[in-house]
């Protein structure tokens, strides 16, 4: 029983500590600087911003 608690506590501590490192890293590597550029990450040259990418089958491409 004590072993179970100890293992879980250790896992939680390990998780927390590694997450702290991750956040610190993210902050240092500039993840939070140009915030709005991040929003464009879903687009790519072949599926660029401005072009819709889904349709019902056999439907004409709409104007948006």
């Amino acid at each position, binding site marked *: 029983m004590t072993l179970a*608690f100890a293992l879980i506590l250790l896992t939680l501590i390990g998780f927390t500590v590694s997450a*702290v490192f991750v*956040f610190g890293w993210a*902050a240092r590597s500039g993840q939070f600087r140009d915030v709005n550029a991040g929003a464009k990450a879903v687009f790519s040259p072949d599926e660029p911003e401005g072009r819709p990418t889904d349709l019902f089958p056999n439907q004409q491409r709409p104007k948006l």
Partner: protein
Amino acid sequence: MHKASVLFIGFLATFATAWIGLVLMPARHYNAQAAQLPAASSADEALIDRGRQVYRANGCLYCHSQQVSPRHFRRDQERGWGERRTVSSDYLRDKIALLGTMRTGPDLANIGLRNPSASWHYIHLYDPQLTSPGSTMPPFRFLFEPVKDGAATDAFALLDGTRVAPTADARALVAYLLSLKHSQGEPPDAFEPPAK
């Protein structure tokens, strides 16, 4: 970015402390209390344990709760479901907490006090319509068997004259139900172990 790191540490500390507060602390407290309980008589306990297993296996808790709400909060006491609210130490003897979250059927925290008749429970379990017309509780006929000889003392007759007797599982389940007396007596102090 120091402020952000501090904020982040705060967020994660909250997650970890949530676990400590909601999980670790109550678990340690109740484990300590349970360890202090005097042992019960073994024959009864074995039958009640088996009955608890039957209750668990058949999902009784999906319709029946086992907790009496505070008097100012709900009207459980006025319904006759208990003389006082249940507190956490009332559940120390239950190996599994079966508090339940639905009242499709009545609360059972004190059913052993409210309805101590084993034969009523057998008939009710066999076919709830026999004792409670309009009930939506399913029949548990599979917990009973036709009487082979005339010897079974807790067999009962149905309307059509056939006689059925409870199986060992049914007897255990009813023993368990009759043991449910969670808010009997004064509430033990929630943060002190009960006297030996």
